[in-house]
């Protein structure tokens, strides 16, 4: 079978900017060479998605990204029959596309998917590397370039929304966290196009909000939020207003926590 044109759309042609925090690039490359399933673990918006985009580019492999959600079914991953003029036709789902034609399949926020959905990946994660498609009566053998990568936010789980132990055990894991102050400021400056000192102030603000993680806030402001804030500043919005719009307001609905955060933000600004 030849790779259909469709996979070309999944190729990343320009280098996604990624600033490594440690040796995660080397670790991932090793896992890639063995085609081991990898779990990227860390809080939301800390660079996991950016990292995998960067790695797919670096390795020259297409990247199929699937954002997982509650209502996602196994069919959404694997594929289903559709109807056309002549009757029913089988249509590969995104996971099957990646398995059949060779791509990194990235299941973003995998805990969001229900456990009975995620079990379909099990046969792909052991030595068999196959995807059984019951409905189509087919056993798809994984392409040599297929690799499974998932992301997982450990701070964001409850007993119900957690990965099955049997699922977790199938992955190598690379830990991610918000970058150190200087590094995060450099990222924000680069991504948002603001001066380094502004970026550094934003990071200081984010650090205040992260202090509230678990004490009023589910999670503090992410790198992604800082990038958004920076973009608003780059658009000419005053810093305080940008912070209010892109950090303080979105992060909580609780009036007291919001007031506390707003006051802490004020403390960060000269």
């Amino acid at each position, binding site marked *: 079978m030849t790779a259909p044109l469709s996979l070309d759309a999944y190729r990343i042609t320009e280098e996604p900017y990624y600033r490594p925090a440690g040796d995660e690039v080397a670790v991932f490359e090793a896992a890639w060479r063995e085609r081991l399933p990898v779990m990227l673990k860390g809080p939301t918006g800390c660079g996991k998605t950016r990292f995998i985009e960067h790695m797919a580019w670096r390795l020259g492999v297409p990247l199929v990204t699937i954002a997982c959600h509650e209502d996602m079914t196994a069919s959404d991953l694997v594929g289903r029959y559709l109807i056309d003029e002549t009757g029913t036709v089988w249509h590969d789902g995104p996971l099957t596309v990646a398995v059949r034609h060779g791509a990194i399949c990235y299941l973003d926020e995998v805990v969001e998917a229900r456990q009975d959905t995620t079990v379909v990946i099990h046969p792909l994660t052991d030595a068999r590397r196959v995807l059984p498609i019951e409905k189509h009566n087919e056993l798809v053998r994984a392409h040599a370039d297929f690799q499974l990568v998932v992301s997982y936010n450990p701070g964001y789980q409850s007993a*119900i929304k957690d990965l099955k132990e049997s699922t977790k055990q199938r992955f190598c894991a690379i830990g991610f966290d918000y970058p150190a102050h200087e590094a995060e400021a450099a990222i924000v400056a680069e991504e948002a196009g603001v001066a380094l000192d502004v970026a550094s102030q934003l990071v200081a603000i984010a650090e205040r909000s992260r202090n509230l993680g678990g004490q009023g806030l589910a999670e503090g402001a992410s790198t992604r939020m800082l990038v958004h804030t920076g973009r608003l500043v780059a658009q000419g919005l005053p810093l305080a207003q940008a912070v209010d719009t892109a950090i303080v307001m979105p992060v909580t609905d609780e009036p*007291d926590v919001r007031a*506390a955060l707003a*006051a802490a933000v004020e403390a960060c600004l000269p």
Partner: protein
Amino acid sequence: MMTSVARLDPPAAPDGGVVTRTERLFAGRGALGVAYREAAETVAKHGSEDDTEVWCASVSGLANANAGATALLAAWQLSREEIRALGPRRLARIIEAAGAVCRRAGATAAAQLLKQAPLARRSLRSGDSTVTWADIVADLAREMPTAIIPLLAETGRVLSRTDLDGFRHWVESGRRACERDTGSQVAFFSLEDPAAVRLLARSGRSQPFDRLERRLSPYAAALYGRPAALRGIEPDPEAIVPPRPNIAGGLMRLPLRFAGADEIQDRTYHAAVAHMGAHLAFSRSRFEVGKLRPLQIALVNLAEDHRVETLASRALPGLANLWRSFHTIGADTPTTTDNLLARIARALADPAFEDDDWAVAKARALLAERSDRLEDPQISREFGSLLGNDFGQRRLQFNWKTYAVEPLYRDDGLGLWEFPEDVAPPETIEMFSDVARPEECSDAPERDDGRVDQDLEPARVRAATREDGLPVARYPEFDHRTGDLRQEWTSVRDMPVPSASPARLHALAATHASVHQKLVSQIRSARIGRSERLKRQPDGDVLDLEAAIDHTVKRRLGEIGDDRLFIRRNRQARDLATLVLLDVSESTRDRPPLSPASVLDMELAATTLLAGALDDLGDRIAIRSFASDGRNDVRMARLKEFDERLSDGPLGRLAGVRPGLSTRLGAAIRHATGEIAAERAYRRLITVVTDGEPSDVDVADPDYLALDARHAVRAARRAGIDIVCIALSNAHLDRAKQVFGAGHVFPVGRIDTLPTALSAIIFRLAAR
């Protein structure tokens, strides 16, 4: 004079009209009659005939209550003096209230009410409020006649500290606090009782601290990465200087309001919390007092304040601006020690501040020389002793008793010091002892608020130790008689949990293995998220064959088919968090008729089985026990946390539960509601396991606690939390139904009926 009053006599009335008729009451009583006429005349001048009639009626009412000359004269004097401010109608109502007081508490009390009314009117600044004030007093006279004279004697003090609503609440608190004991009634209403003073201070408009507390603690956490425990400092009416914040063993203590305008309260609290947070973050160890005198200590504090503020502002430059804005003292103020200290503080915080006093210059120089050692608290000590000597040579007087650190937001600094040893100068020791008192009981301030009995003895308060549990929260309580929520009426403490061998519970679980199995399968199949098959969907897991055939047929016939051809299974994972609230009061020691086991044993069995089943399924379940000993001592113990598996740890704690004390159900429910509200789950369920009857030692009214609990139950439901009751005694079933609502009470007489009750509960959850 006679002529002008004659004008009031309606000529047509043969008996001479109400004014004259009333006057006959005082006929032949000399001066009394004259005084009456004078007052009646004044009133008549300021109102209609009807008004005057109403007033006259009130006066005769007072006379008929056997008020006696003093009270009557007081009524007339009040009428003459206050006619402009109050008008005849309000005067009449106040005189009526005095009549009621007279009948209940005697003529002297009535006279007192009338004499204090002008003062009340001035304090309350409203005629209507003055009438209400008099009515409240008259109302109190019915239950507590002996308290009226002491209360009225303190009218000025009382009304200067609160407003009308506050007054009403405070009186109500007093009424509840000292139900039948006249001694404590007098102590309370004469403000001799310090608890009465504190309650009064808290009774009026809510204090800024109460309003801000919930945001200040996350504020401190955001700034310094550590949560702060905050406490209010109850106002001390005897204090010479207004209270400053202070640090006591990691607690930040703050006045209930700062001196000054409402507009600056928010900023001052933020400045204070940021400042104390800086101390907690950067003043790592406490200073030894050694031989330092109060002035030197104040100077060390000054430098230390500067040091920690500078360190904190490095990462948080906005704080420097906030703090600087509080320094307002001018360089031209008289050179007293207090002023000089404030000027030095300003000079250190504000480089632009100009002051040519050499002490200011020296202070700046001393710290500039040490600016590379800012991390080292020792520089504050050096600063204090060096500058202290210079102050000494200038013979500047320092009186620590009247000194209050400036600016306003700064803490008194004494929390940074070890308590002085004997070698310290006597005045230093005295200074520390003076503040040590509130510090010692700061862990248990909740306990002494408004409780007017032996428990208030400071000895008891101080003896409160960890075994008594840590106060963790205060809750309001609903009074069905007034329809009011009494603020901060109960306090909940988190009790340490003794453990016992879980063997008993293991055995119990083994005996009821079949019950366990039933529970597990019931909960597993629980319809709290039953899956549904939705036909004819635009997309889905499987083809809807019927629809597909329909569609194909239509297409073949050249019609337009419906292309919604899929079946979708809509399934929600069971997402349930459960908190079990276990009544462990003395009454659970009882054995229900015909039952082999005590209520508590059945509670434990039911809880173990329920928790076991939920735990097996990986559902989140927490267990708390509760009992109470009066409203200030609601004891709760954490037997199992949501995150914990049901291992021997929690089972041991369950097994260690012993019955005792009473059942203040409402407070326990409020606490449980707060806890489960923080859980992220689709359905949240509080299951109260009890024998059904709320009661407590300080409550006589059998409805009071039940209706309060009902109030708490409704609040929980409004917050989207399900709350049900497993009732283990049929004796109080009606009570339980009153509290939880009939459909939410599940009687369990024997353990093997537990699965039935539980499936009913689950059915309810699913039905909503």
